[in-house]
């Protein structure tokens, strides 16, 4: 999650046009300003495919969640099929990590958190996430689909003086964390 308070109710953009954002990706920090944004309606981000019973897929990149240069994405997501899904952003960095376990997502999140706040993640440029799908059941699956929705943000660089003001806490900024276990 980013360092902002997730609003109650349905999904809202993390920032609006004209807002400053601090985009964190691994150890990188990019101070930018949002110059354009648009909604990304719910869509099928990936179908990892058929899986035999009691199996784990290889870690699979989701190209459909990649962004253009100077853009970041804010996504919420849910599995459509009876699977558990582990999320990685990027491929080597686990998301939703506790001390002893990496917590997967399953379709019950739709009932337990209908607005999917707990699923939110961010993608910086083409550093898209990967998933591992667990077909935990004693039955094979013919498809393993993941749905996603959210917002796309185009950002421009800030003038150095504004970056300095943000660093000194004199200008507001929204923190956006675009990688896994930070």
């Amino acid at each position, binding site marked *: 999650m980013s360092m902002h308070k997730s609003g109650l109710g349905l999904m809202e953009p993390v920032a609006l046009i004209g807002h400053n954002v601090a985009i964190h990706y691994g150890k990188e920090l990019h101070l930018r300003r949002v110059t354009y944004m648009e909604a990304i309606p719910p869509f099928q981000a990936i179908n990892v495919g058929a899986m035999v019973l009691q199996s784990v897929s290889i870690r699979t990149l989701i190209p459909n969640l990649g962004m253009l240069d100077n853009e970041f994405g804010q996504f919420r997501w849910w599995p459509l099929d009876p699977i558990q899904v582990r999320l990685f952003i990027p491929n080597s960095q686990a998301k939703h990590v506790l001390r002893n376990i990496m917590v997967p997502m399953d379709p019950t999140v739709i009932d337990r958190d209908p607005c999917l706040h707990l699923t939110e993640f961010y993608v910086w440029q083409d550093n898209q996430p990967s998933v591992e799908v*667990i077909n935990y059941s004693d*039955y094979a699956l013919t498809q393993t689909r993941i749905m996603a929705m959210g917002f796309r943000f185009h950002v421009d660089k800030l003038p150095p003086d504004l970056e300095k003001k943000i660093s000194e806490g004199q200008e507001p900024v929204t923190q956006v964390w675009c990688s896994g276990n930070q």
Partner: protein
Amino acid sequence: MVTALRKGIRRAGPVTTLGAAGIANAAAIYQVSNFAQQVGTKTVRLKKIMARPAGGVADTINIGTGVGMGVFAALIPAINLVGGMDAEWQEFDLPEVESNADITCYGTAVAAHFVQLEVEEVG
């Protein structure tokens, strides 16, 4: 919302043709998920039953867990299959039984009934 926190995933078991009649021949009609790499322990709750008597011959079917005398444990009372009729029990007909083992079924006197379950998988 509060009740949704205990809500599971609805799944249908395979259409199963039971084997020979009798408790020693109880067949799995829904196999509970127990994959070593899953997160959490899964149980299933019985939500719907569809059954058709083999050859249109009336019988009772027994739904529970385990196979064999002294091992099979009924989840619900034996239910009647009326000869020549489709049988369907919906969620509101069924007690809220929950199982952490494979669900098995056998016909009391007649072989090869057709049975399918819908369950809610919790966990």
